[in-house]
């Protein structure tokens, strides 16, 4: 009975030793299991929790992978050797990584070379049938065996980091790149002997056995001394492609006409339009929208970024189906972003679950292509303004983020135009309608005529905080969506859209000049008008165009309330010398018209000549 108890203890030590060794080996050679363990270890470190399994051999390794439990069950005969093969799977270089994603088992993937680069053998020799010591001697004996097992495990742990395979493991564990090779493992109770050629390149190290009275626990490793024969290089095609040349890119010429936009008029056409009376502007306004104010969504930019996780998620599927239940190979998942090689471990009816489950994969291609029709849709409409991003960026981002909306604080700096108009939105019923609509959007309303755009924005807004649902949201709906990246750039983009949706991106910087504007509503409009015209000289050509466009849009009819325009309001700090009506008192309506005409003329001059003619013009007037 005592012998049974003693042998039971020894068996327990041996059994746990095998599990622990397997855990150490898999944790140091199989990247997918290592990632899983590392994550858990982060959690466990925070909780300072030591599991029961960690206490064995005083080595805290974290949760055992599920595969390990099943493997232990399969190899529960302690006297059978436990052979752990670490296999380097090398994919052919002719394969395309994209092909691998969708059809990893396709012939185009190329043949996979599999090479056993390490073989660990844990063996518990057949016990000798000798009388085991009893009582205290037995206890001391098992303590010694346990202590020696601890030391053996320590040395094995250190050795694992010194062998050549560890470097490969580290490379594969890095999530920044994907490679054309993979590390998989195979556990069995027998080992196929190496060929002579294989043996020639291998070395063996035998750890000193732990001798027990009833057996001998030994560990040995046969490993390839050098792995330089393998073409271990990272895949180049897989990293996300950043498309810099998209509509709205700061580096892209804003006036460049993109194929999907049919209204790529040049800004230089504006001075001509600016000379026309505003009364005819309603018919001209579509043209003003078309003069390059179309804003392209950076969908292509985000397309690749947002697309990669769903694309990645497709890949486990074929392997899940293809892996046979009796496959002894344990395979790793290449990369959390893109998987060129995903195979699910199946060993004696066990399959290790990949860390990422496929989700919404069928809709991914439609998502990727969906952005184009989206862009087209936006470009074909006149009401929703697509404003080129660089203009927006220049005009809005870098100005004072004077926002009255607390919800904007978390977003990139808003256009001072919009912020200014926010402040004045209550006062000016017209002219700032576009900004009001932006406010309505923020409040969740969907003004008429803008429903498509806003609804899309709203969808994105709803999903922007939850990147986990983002792709699902995008992919599950059939309607095209604006392409947004999951990153914060998406928020900024959205913010820009909000800013510039119904406002000209060029009528910026009025915050610098418009401080002295009049208080009444119409005066406010005039001040905007003049403030904008004031700033034309200062800003670039494009900004001036924007100002003019805005003026055309917001210009009130000539024959409205005559209190709209006062000479006082027009007498601003305009350096360009638009001192039109200084001391020039005329009946309201005519004066208004004259002033407007003059301002348009000024605008035109300023647009035509960037800086030099300003003083000249002033002199002419005087």
């Amino acid at each position, binding site marked *: 009975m005592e012998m049974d108890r003693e042998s039971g203890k020894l068996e327990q030590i041996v059994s746990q030793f095998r599990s622990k060794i397997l855990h150490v080996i898999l944790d140091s050679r199989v990247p997918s299991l290592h990632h899983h363990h590392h994550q858990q270890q982060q959690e466990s470190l925070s909780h300072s929790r030591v599991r029961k399994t960690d206490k064995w051999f005083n080595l*805290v390794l974290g949760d055992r992978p599920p595969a390990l439990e099943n493997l232990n069950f399969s190899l529960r005969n302690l006297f059978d050797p436990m052979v752990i093969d670490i296999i380097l799977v090398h994919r052919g270089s002719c394969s395309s990584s994209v092909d691998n994603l969708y059809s990893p088992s396709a012939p185009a993937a190329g043949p996979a070379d599999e090479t056993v680069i390490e073989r660990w053998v844990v063996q518990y020799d057949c016990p000798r049938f000798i009388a085991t010591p009893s009582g205290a001697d037995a206890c001391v004996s098992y303590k010694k065996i346990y*202590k020696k097992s601890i030391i053996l495990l320590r040395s094995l742990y*250190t*050795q694992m*980091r*010194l062998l050549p395979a560890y470097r490969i493991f580290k490379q594969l564990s890095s999530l920044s790149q994907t490679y054309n090779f993979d590390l998989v493992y195979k556990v069995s109770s027998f080992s196929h002997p190496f060929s002579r050629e294989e043996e020639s390149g291998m070395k063996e190290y035998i750890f000193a056995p732990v001798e027990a009275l009833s057996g001998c626990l030994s560990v040995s490793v046969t490993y390839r001394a050098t792995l330089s024969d393998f073409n271990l290089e990272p895949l180049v095609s897989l990293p996300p492609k950043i498309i810099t040349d998209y509509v709205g890119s700061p580096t892209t010429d804003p006036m460049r006409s993109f194929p999907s936009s049919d209204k790529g008029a040049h800004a230089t056409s504006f001075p001509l339009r600016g000379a026309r009376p505003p009364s005819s502007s309603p018919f001209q306004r579509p043209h003003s929208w078309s003069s390059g104010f179309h804003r392209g969504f950076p969908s292509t930019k985000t397309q690749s970024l947002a697309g990669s996780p769903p694309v990645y998620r497709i890949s486990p599927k074929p392997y899940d189906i293809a892996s046979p239940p009796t496959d002894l190979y344990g395979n790793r998942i290449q990369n959390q972003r893109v998987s060129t090689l995903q195979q699910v471990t199946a060993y004696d009816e066990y399959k290790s679950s990949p860390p990422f489950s496929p989700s919404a994969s069928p809709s991914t291609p439609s998502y990727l292509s969906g952005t184009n029709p989206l862009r087209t849709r936006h470009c074909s409409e006149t009401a929703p303004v697509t404003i080129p991003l660089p203009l927006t960026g220049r005009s809005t981002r870098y100005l004072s983020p004077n926002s009255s909306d607390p919800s904007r604080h978390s977003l990139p700096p808003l256009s001072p135009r919009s912020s200014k108009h926010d402040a004045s939105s209550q006062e000016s019923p017209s002219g700032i309608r576009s900004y009001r609509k932006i406010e309505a959007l923020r409040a969740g309303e969907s003004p008429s005529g803008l429903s498509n755009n806003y609804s899309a924005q709203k969808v994105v807004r709803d999903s922007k905080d939850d990147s986990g649902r983002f792709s699902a949201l995008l992919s599950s709906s059939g309607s095209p969506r604006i392409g947004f990246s999951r990153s914060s750039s998406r928020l900024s983009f959205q913010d820009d859209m909000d800013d510039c949706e119904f406002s000209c991106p060029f009528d910026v910087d009025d915050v610098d000049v418009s401080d002295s504007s009049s208080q009444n509503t119409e005066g406010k409009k005039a001040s905007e008008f003049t403030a904008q015209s004031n700033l034309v000289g200062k800003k670039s050509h494009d900004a001036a165009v924007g100002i003019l466009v805005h003026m055309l849009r917001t210009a009130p009819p000539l024959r409205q309330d005559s209190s709209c325009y006062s000479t006082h309001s027009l007498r601003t700090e305009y350096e360009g010398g638009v001192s039109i009506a200084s001391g020039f008192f005329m009946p309201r309506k005519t004066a208004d018209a004259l002033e407007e005409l003059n301002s348009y003329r000024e605008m035109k001059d300023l647009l035509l000549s960037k800086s030099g003619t300003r003083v000249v013009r002033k002199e002419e007037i005087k």
Partner: protein
Amino acid sequence: MNCEVCQLKELEVEHFEIREVLRCILHTIVFHRALGLVRPKDVDLELFEITYVQCGDVELEKKIDEKIDHFISWVEKHPNKKSQICLSFYEVKSKQPSWFTNKTERLYWEQWYINLNVTQHPKHHSSKSHHTKLVVDPGESATEERSSRRAMVEASLREVLFQIIKFVNEKKDHVPPISEGVIYFPYEITIPSSSDSAFGMDMIKRMLHSGHPTMLS
């Protein structure tokens, strides 16, 4: 109980490499002698492509770093000299108090001798200088020489680590039993003191305390 001694292979290192090399060796040895509950921590060397394991004890790390600092100071005062660092593990045994001895005595059961030959003048480099600061000759031959030298040091260091593993595996019987709650056995790191004679005096003192002759192989 015999005191097992391991003389590690001599390493030829430059001044700026001392810290990393010593950390690697000392922590590796201690990890094999930290038989209490440990949470292993992998550390990648910056100068070499070697990963070693620490037992994760912050106090231990601090003490080892202190000793390395002392050693580096000593090296700066004694440039271009072969030096030896001794890492000893002992048991504390209570003893009958007498006139000449303390109440407790240390029984050294294992000693590791780390042999270093610091080749470069320490004034050219600070203790934490990166290898890129080593500018001797901007020529290509100097670069090649440097990289081949670096590879040699890495190979030697790897050999030393394998030597430690081998020693640890082959000799286990002399290791004392593990005490409950103790992570690592009491240890002592001895660095050369200001003079060689003093270093020898340290050895003699240790012999007197332990009561066992130090076996130097």
